[in-house]
């Protein structure tokens, strides 16, 4: 047990996939720390490794082709990598729970909602059928599903996307986990529903004291939700900072690019929205220098030649860039 209130420490995590195209370094040296009750945002484009990081924490990487090559994952004082798969299963769903991106496909279409809810508490909390059923009803009520008792015997396809995501959240929280990992929980939903779901997560987190990792490609989503943010790119942490500071004084050109790409209806009316040029690199064949150099408007020769250092701006703020301090200085 760690007593400094840290729930999860990830240290130099590397998860690689062996493909016909070579070794894809999906996650390549990620480190972060999450304190109890804290919310961490992980932001990045598709393929930046944010989902793989969290699937690694749950040991849900399909092996083969994937493999956690090195690094430490310390959950509440226990090294998850050292556990047997049976011991990991006791953590999954019980102490660390996950919500996935697409509630349409993440719930089993063939099984009743009650079955899918009940199996978690029957497994982890030793509930009898009756207890599990009543607990399920209670959970559905908690996540704001109207007429939960009637919904229990329904199937996922009878619910709307937002309702399904609520069911996912009810399922994830039914064993009162210490850590909730939400992987793009609102990406597949309408904007109005997005706000409701985020509000729900925020509210439940406040009530239950759960630590949360919120994965998203949308900086707008993490802005009001998180204590600190990690920006990932090409399997690496590009910037790590408290939320407020990251938004006000980013120290990485990539973060700046992302911030500029968030639409702001108050200004720039009629102007085209900024877009970072180019595409994310192929992580199977990375150049020797900075993986972002080709798309960066700040790049110089050194960026293409040498891999950038992880510069400490202050104790909580780090940035992977040759010019981190200068970018930070610009405010």
């Amino acid at each position, binding site marked *: 047990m760690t007593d400094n209130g840290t729930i999860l420490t990830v240290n130099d995590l590397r998860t690689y996939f062996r493909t016909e195209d070579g070794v894809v370094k999906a996650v390549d040296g990620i480190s972060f720390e999450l304190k109890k009750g804290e919310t961490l945002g992980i932001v990045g484009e598709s393929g930046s490794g944010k989902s793989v990081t969290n699937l690694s924490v*749950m040991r*849900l990487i399909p092996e083969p082709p994937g493999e956690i090559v090195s690094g430490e994952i310390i959950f509440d004082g226990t090294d998850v990598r050292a556990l047997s798969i049976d011991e990991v*299963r*006791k*953590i*999954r*769903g*019980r102490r660390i*729970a*996950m919500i*996935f991106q*697409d509630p349409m*496909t*993440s*719930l*089993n*279409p*063939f*099984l*009743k909602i009650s*079955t899918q809810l009940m*199996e*978690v508490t029957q*497994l*982890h909390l030793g509930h009898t059928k009756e207890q599990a059923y009543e607990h399920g009803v209670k959970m559905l009520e908690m996540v704001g599903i109207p007429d939960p008792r009637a919904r229990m015997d329904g*199937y996922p*396809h009878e619910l709307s996307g937002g309702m399904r995501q609520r069911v*996912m959240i009810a*399922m994830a929280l039914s064993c009162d986990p210490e850590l909730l990992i939400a992987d793009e929980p609102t990406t597949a939903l309408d904007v109005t529903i997005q706000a409701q779901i985020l509000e729900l997560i925020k509210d439940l987190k406040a009530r239950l004291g759960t630590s949360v990792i919120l994965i998203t490609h949308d900086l707008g989503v993490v802005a009001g939700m998180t204590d600190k943010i990690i920006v990932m790119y090409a399997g690496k942490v590009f910037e790590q900072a408290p939320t407020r500071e990251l938004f006000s004084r980013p120290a990485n050109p990539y973060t700046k690019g992302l911030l500029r790409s968030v639409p702001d209806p108050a200004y720039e009316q009629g102007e085209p929205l900024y877009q970072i040029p180019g595409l994310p690199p192929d992580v199977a064949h990375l150049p020797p220098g900075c993986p972002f150099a080709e798309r960066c408007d700040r790049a110089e020769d050194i960026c293409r030649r040498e891999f950038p250092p992880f510069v400490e701006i202050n104790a909580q703020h780090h940035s992977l860039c040759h010019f981190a301090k200068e970018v930070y200085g610009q405010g």
Partner: protein
Amino acid sequence: MLGFILKRLLLIIPMALIAVSVTWALIRVAPGTFYSSEKKIPAAVEAKLREKYGLDDPWYKQYGIMLSNIARGDFGISLKYEGQPVNEIIARHLPYSAVIGLLAYLLALAIGLVAGTIAALRQNSAFDYASMAAAMLGLSVPNFVLGPLLVLVFSFWLYLLPPARWGGFTSLILPVVTLAAIYAAYIARLTRAGLLEVMRSDYIRTARAKGLSERSVILRHALRGGLLPVVSFTGPALAALLAGTVVVEKVFAIPGLGNIFIQSVLNRDEPLVLGIVAFISVLVMIFNLIVDIAYGFIDPRIRYE
């Protein structure tokens, strides 16, 4: 649901009549008649025969009589096996085909499901490669090759099993195995592909993220969806197996429906041909209906209108 079943059952009648009509037309188009043989029959006899069976009537009249008889369930008397009603002939020969077909079906299901499931769960293992190679072989070797081959090995070399004819359980083994091979192979491949597809789906990841054991993940979450393609294949397959399989019955000299069917075609025994066609088409449609109903029980998203 009940309305759906009723509608589908009623549809069987016109569909079967269409199958019968097409067959009738084909028999008429094909050269030769039921009374033709190598030896020419006297003209007077031929004229008598044609008159007796109304063969000189206009085609639409003959067609109308045939159709109205069959629509009433009366398939008439065989032309070759004189005095024997078609219904009786079918009833006499069906059991042979049905016993062999049902056994082959069960064998194919057992082998196919088990092999396919293990292959999917141990993807790229030695078992996977071996069983899929065997399945490929099962699909590629036609049963008129496999049958004689099995007879050669198990009857003529090893003296273990009777080579042909109907008589006791041991005589069933070779035909059943020959018949089951291709279906087992097909079911194994369908099972493997279906399961692999499902095992990659998001809801399986969810099930694993809940901490369920691999056993529960597969049995509770994966099998239903993974076996849907198998279900849709095995319905019509069972119909085809029950109704007799020409080649295997020929190879093993089994007096089943398939054998009699071929004979009836060669004999231009019109009533018998039409009777068997009607029987088989009804059987296939009933099994398709059963599959569709089963689908509704397996997949709650399917609604009957």
